[in-house]
């Protein structure tokens, strides 16, 4: 398993953003669904080793990220796209991706080819020499994806990756996800259930810091037959599971 999470908690002061999550994931595309404030981004940041867990056990790529050496090894094999991508406006697309490739400790000889490949994979080849300040929001999102995949990560964590992408790009991006998921564990945090339906092999639904559903997209869709609202079957499953979870919460 590339991700092993046991009873993981993350607090910010009195707020428990992640409350006792158990999760395991191997190669494939893993969708992380949930409403705003469910704890998806916090969980992703913990998995990305940005934040240490408050309690619980976390193992990534069969290593303990709590220790410096293993954490560095994990980071070499990690790709991460945060929800809000920061960038240096004066860098070109290639420079920005190269910068991260070098910081990810990629062997220098491999960097130019890897950068070119990553930029091509997100369809920014023609903008390779463009300064980031000249790019649209969707293009910047793709630059963020390029820096995340430049090191061919074994664990790829994407927070709202399709935000700002047009429908055509989203379709292409889903294909890219499926391709990446053949060799790596890709965790995609999103509000967009159609992304999950199209690309994910597994899905977890979070609410109030807890995982309230873990299964395949088909299983989530099936939960929608009992009730739930939405235009698409998966949406109905999503709302039905959330409603059940909230009812159970209220009763307890």
């Amino acid at each position, binding site marked *: 398993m590339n991700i092993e999470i046991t009873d993981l908690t993350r607090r910010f002061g009195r707020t428990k953003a992640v409350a006792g999550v158990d999760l395991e994931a191997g190669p494939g595309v893993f969708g992380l669904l949930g409403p705003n404030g469910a704890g998806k981004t916090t969980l992703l940041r913990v998995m990305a080793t940005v934040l240490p867990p408050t309690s619980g056990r976390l193992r990534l790529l069969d290593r303990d990220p709590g220790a410096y050496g293993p954490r560095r090894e994990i980071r070499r094999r990690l790709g991460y796209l945060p929800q809000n991508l920061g960038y240096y406006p004066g860098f070109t697309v290639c420079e920005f991706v190269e910068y991260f490739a070098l910081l990810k400790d990629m062997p220098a000889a491999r960097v130019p080819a890897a950068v070119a490949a990553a930029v091509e*994979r997100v369809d920014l080849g023609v903008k390779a020499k463009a300064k980031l300040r000249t790019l649209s929001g969707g293009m910047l999102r793709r630059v963020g994806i390029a820096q995340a995949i430049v090191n061919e990560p074994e664990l790829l964590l994407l927070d709202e990756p399709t935000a700002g992408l047009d429908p055509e790009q989203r379709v292409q991006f889903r294909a890219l996800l499926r391709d990446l998921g053949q060799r790596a564990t890709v965790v995609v945090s999103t509000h967009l259930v159609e992304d999950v339906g199209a690309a994910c092999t597994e899905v977890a639904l979070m609410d109030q810091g807890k995982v309230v559903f873990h299964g395949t997209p088909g299983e989530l869709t099936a939960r929608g037959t009992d009730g739930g609202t939405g235009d698409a079957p998966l949406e109905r499953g999503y709302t039905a599971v959330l409603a059940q979870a909230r009812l159970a919460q209220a009763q307890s």
Partner: protein
Amino acid sequence: MTAPPAPAVPRPPHHAVRAKVVPGRLLRLELRRNTMLWMLPVAILLFWYNGYREIMAVPPMWNLRAMTLQNRLLLDFAIPVVGAAAWMASREGRRGVADLLGITARPRWARQLTGWAATTCWALLGYLCCVAVVYVLTARQASWGGPLWWPAVVGAVAVPLLSAVGFAAGTLFPSRFTVPLVTVAAFFGLAFGTQAASGDHSYWQISPLTSGAVDIGADPGVATFYHYLPDLSIAQVMFAAGLTAAVLGLLGLPAGSGGRWLRRSAAVITVAGLAAAGTAVALAGTGRLDPHGMIVIPALHDAANDQPIRYTPVCSHTAIPVCVNPAYTAYLPAVTAVLRPVLTELAGLPGAPRQVTQAAQAYAQGPGNSINLIFHGLAARDGSVVFSLPDPLPGDQGQTSAGFDSRLKTTGLQIVAGVIGSQSRAAGSPAVAGPAQQAVISALTRLTAPQLAFRNGSAEQLGPYGRLLPAPGSPAAAAATRFAALPAAAQHAWLVQHLPALRAGRISLAQLP
């Protein structure tokens, strides 16, 4: 976005990923997108407007130019360098890239050092270009000597310190207000460092802006006749390098900067840097002013540097030759023009000097920052007269050609008084002159007491030389006018015949022709 197939980037086994990253690639990237590159024109413009014009206005002597350069250039570079470094360091926070960078495998400290190094490279390049321009122009203008490297080295070592201070401030306080605050603080901190020094034992001499003794600084007489003493410069280099290491090491101490080994190294570097800087400050406090106007630090001093510099003097073709240090060649015509009439009168007289030779001034530290000139003027030595050129030289701040000539006339007065007066010339003390002697001295130098008083500011400040000239309206003044009206040949002939009696005080005013 293209999905399949993944490009053919060979994926090596992960142990191969450990292969060394060439830090040069990262540095090259940082160099290309570094703010200091854009601040270079600002720094150079500041230097041109402020330091360069001041440096090039001083006489073309290596010591003056180099020591002024150390003081001015660093101050001009302080704001752009500190500002650019702080801006570069705070960009992660300002641009919201901290999360992304925080999870990269490369240690944060290594990443920060690369950013600092890129900023410093550009700053140093600008600094060295400015030094090169000043030194090349000085090489073309100076009549003697060679570049003084220590002042340039001190500045070159202080530039990374400025950069490190800015970088540390930007890293620790990544706010948009950091840049203006830290630049102002650095500028005033530097400037205050030079103002706070008090005397030759002051610890504040460690400021990289200080070139030599605090109240002498860049002076024509310093490091011309004797070697430029590197003692203080060595301490300043130690201080700047040590503090740079300490500041950079400090950035590697927080958790998350790197692994245990890296953080331990950072701690060792910080402690070593602080020790070096502290030692340098302590050494600066042991400094003392040597007679040649430089700071001697006993623990760093090389006695070989106390030997005078050998040189072949440049001499005038006057009746009594005037010889100056070749560094002053440009001033020989002015000196000769003032002294020639006097020397022509004195040539051939008994007791007249064979040669008038320039000698170094000698200094002593007074209370606080005051400096006493223990040799400044004229003395007799082996049948010659040694004198010091008026300081400052024309072109220096507050000095004009007229002022320079005026002070040279005092030198001429002293030379004449040395021959005509009845003092002990060997002691170099001012002459004591009777009325007849005063009349002859006044006639030969074409000087009167009011003229001298004017130059010195007031009658009270006439000092010892005032006694060499007759009071206005006195019988001696009338005799001086009478003697001055004689043809030069007649004056000379009378002096040849009567000089011993005149010096002995046996000639009365009435006996003067």
